């Protein structure tokens, strides 16, 4: 067990600057309007750094830098770009603990997660796209003896990316790695709840990328995100967030006739068929853990398994075991490697979760565990902590239908296969789902029948770089991870070449 020293104390691995500027054209640039906002650590509820509050003028400066860098970066070979991505991965790996402390302080997540998940995944993600771009081949078709269609993948140019606060560095990586691999230059707008950890990473990797290839402008959605998303100077806009902003971004993209990929969340079902309880063995233990994964990252995951559907014959025993398992989850100082549940990312997130717990009770859902804010005392007393919460109710209740984005699971039962699939699909969303069964045929069919982009079978919350991730239904458009993501950052150039000296004969 290790407790990392809090930033601001002598032994801390990371020393935050008192003020962070924008990263534009390979240097730190003051905001044009000279305004800053405070970054609050959810661990303590206290501000710890000032961050540049970007406006349309700063977005324009970043776009200038990106446009200046785009022609040369777009002409680099895949080999050169892969070398850059691999170097970034090496730096992340070499600075794992420092970055983990920064991520935990910015976001509130328990440090075992960035140490073992967020950051190793981020490093691997850069390496994955380094490999993908090196292995990418153009295509050609011999249309007839003298005519050949050549297909080349070309960069889009300058792209805009707006990322969320739940995995600040990893979600940036999901968007940056394919965009850089594809030869694009980028203006990135981090979430205003977690603006700093990505800048700590930039301090480490800034000199690896040519100036202007990656530009970061912080600020509020209205003041910095909107000018970026609506700019006629980007060739693509990528966004992760919620449905209303997603629609607004698609609206801006339509005005500029550019493509947009949007990932907008979910309300993922986690289905436990009765045969999981056939034996009390390692698989049963794994399935139990699969239930408790609703509390992973404090539930702040777009694919949080926030609806548990348990088959009736095992409902009481499975749920009772799951309650015991959840009660053992250790909530505490996020900088302690023993901590399993940390802080919610912001005060308004905390308030929103509590408002959902309230409506859950009003709708008649039964509160089986948690349901309140937690005061951890000492320096953590003002941090944003919510106890892991289990509700029992019906799928039509709002706590079953809306993404609470907190450590809250809504549990109900189902009769048979048809009932399980009907309940799983009775949602606006289709991002993730879990299926647990010892019967491979049953699990396969369920996986195919659930309308979601990612169905985990006999596991949950794994995010390997090689597996496509994205939504069905109102969960969004496009895929991240896997080589499919590269398609969203490249154009197809077709050269249609005639090797014949013979005229067509039309004129």
């Amino acid at each position: 067990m290790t407790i990392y020293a809090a930033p601001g104390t002598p032994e801390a691995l990371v020393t935050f600057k008192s003020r962070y500027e924008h990263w534009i054209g390979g240097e730190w640039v003051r905001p044009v309007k000279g305004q800053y906002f405070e970054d609050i650590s959810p661990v303590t509820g206290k501000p710890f750094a000032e961050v540049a509050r970007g406006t349309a003028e700063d977005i324009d400066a970043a776009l200038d830098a990106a446009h200046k860098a785009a022609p040369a970066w777009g002409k680099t070979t895949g080999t050169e770009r892969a070398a850059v991505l691999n170097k970034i991965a090496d730096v992340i790996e070499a600075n794992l603990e420092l970055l983990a402390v920064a991520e935990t302080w910015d976001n509130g997540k328990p440090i075992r997660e960035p140490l073992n998940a967020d950051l190793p995944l981020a490093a691997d993600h850069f390496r994955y796209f380094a490999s993908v771009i090196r292995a990418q081949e153009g295509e050609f078709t011999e249309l007839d003896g003298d005519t050949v269609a050549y297909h080349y993948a070309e960069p889009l140019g300058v792209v805009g990316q707006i990322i969320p606060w739940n995995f600040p560095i990893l979600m940036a990586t999901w968007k940056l790695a394919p965009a850089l691999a594809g030869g694009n230059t980028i203006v990135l707008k981090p979430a205003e709840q977690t603006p700093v950890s990505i800048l700590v990473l930039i301090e480490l990797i800034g000199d690896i990328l040519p100036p202007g290839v990656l530009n970061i402008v912080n600020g509020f959605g209205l003041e910095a995100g909107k000018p970026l998303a609506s700019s006629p100077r980007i060739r693509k806009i990528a966004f992760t967030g919620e449905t209303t902003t997603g629609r607004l971004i698609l609206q801006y993209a339509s005005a500029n006739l550019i493509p947009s990929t949007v990932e907008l969340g979910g309300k993922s079902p986690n289905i436990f068929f009765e045969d999981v309880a056939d034996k009390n063995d390692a698989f049963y233990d794994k399935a139990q853990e699969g239930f408790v994964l609703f509390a992973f990252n404090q539930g702040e995951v777009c694919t949080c398994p926030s609806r548990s559907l348990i088959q009736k014959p095992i409902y009481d025993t499975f749920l009772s075991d799951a309650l015991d398992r959840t009660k053992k989850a250790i909530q505490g100082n996020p900088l302690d490697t023993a901590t399993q549940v940390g802080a919610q990312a912001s005060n308004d997130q905390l308030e929103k979760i509590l408002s959902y717990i309230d409506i859950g009770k009003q709708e008649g859902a039964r509160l089986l565990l948690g349901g309140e804010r937690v005061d951890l005392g000492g320096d953590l007393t003002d941090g944003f902590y919510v106890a892991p919460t289990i509700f029992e109710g019906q799928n039509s209740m709002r706590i079953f239908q809306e993404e609470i984005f907190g450590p809250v699971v809504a549990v109900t039962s189902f009769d048979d296969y048809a009932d399980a699939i009907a309940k799983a699909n009775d949602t606006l969303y289709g991002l993730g789902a879990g299926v647990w069964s010892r019967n491979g045929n049953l699990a396969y069919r369920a996986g195919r029948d659930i309308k979601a982009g990612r169905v985990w079978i006999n596991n949950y919350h794994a995010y390997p770089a090689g597996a496509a991730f994205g939504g069905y239904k109102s969960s969004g458009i496009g895929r991240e991870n896997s080589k499919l993501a590269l398609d969203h950052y490249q154009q197809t150039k077709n050269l249609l070449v005639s090797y014949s000296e013979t005229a067509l004969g039309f004129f």
Partner: protein
Amino acid sequence: MIDAAVVIDGESQSRVALTDASIDLLHLLWGKYGPLMFHQSGGCCDGSSPMCYPAGDFITSDADVLLGRFDIAAPGDPGTPGTPGTPGTPGQPIDFWMSREQFAYWSHTHLTVDVVPGRGSGFSVEGPEGLRFLIRSRLMDDAQPFR
């Protein structure tokens, strides 16, 4: 508190309300951005929150339902000069919208727009104020709790 006017055909109860803190904040925002609208979001991150935009910025369609219309002008106040609301409508009207598919799951609940300290709000206009609109819910009078 202000209750929204009933705008759904055949309904007699207001579905949305504003707390006093929301009304104060909306007055401030109206002064900065002119006429305003709400669209209730769903989904991830800053989702499930009411997003407040300059009126017309978010394009609504048949895919949306108008749940109610507030008037935040004080009684007898014709509205803010120079920033008229919807043509022909006196006062300071603010429409509250939600996507139709989301309304199908929310329709049994009454919504009150409140304000909390916070940050991060998509492109919602209150974000830079260090405040965040938040929905508090209760069951509609004619909705039965699920049992």
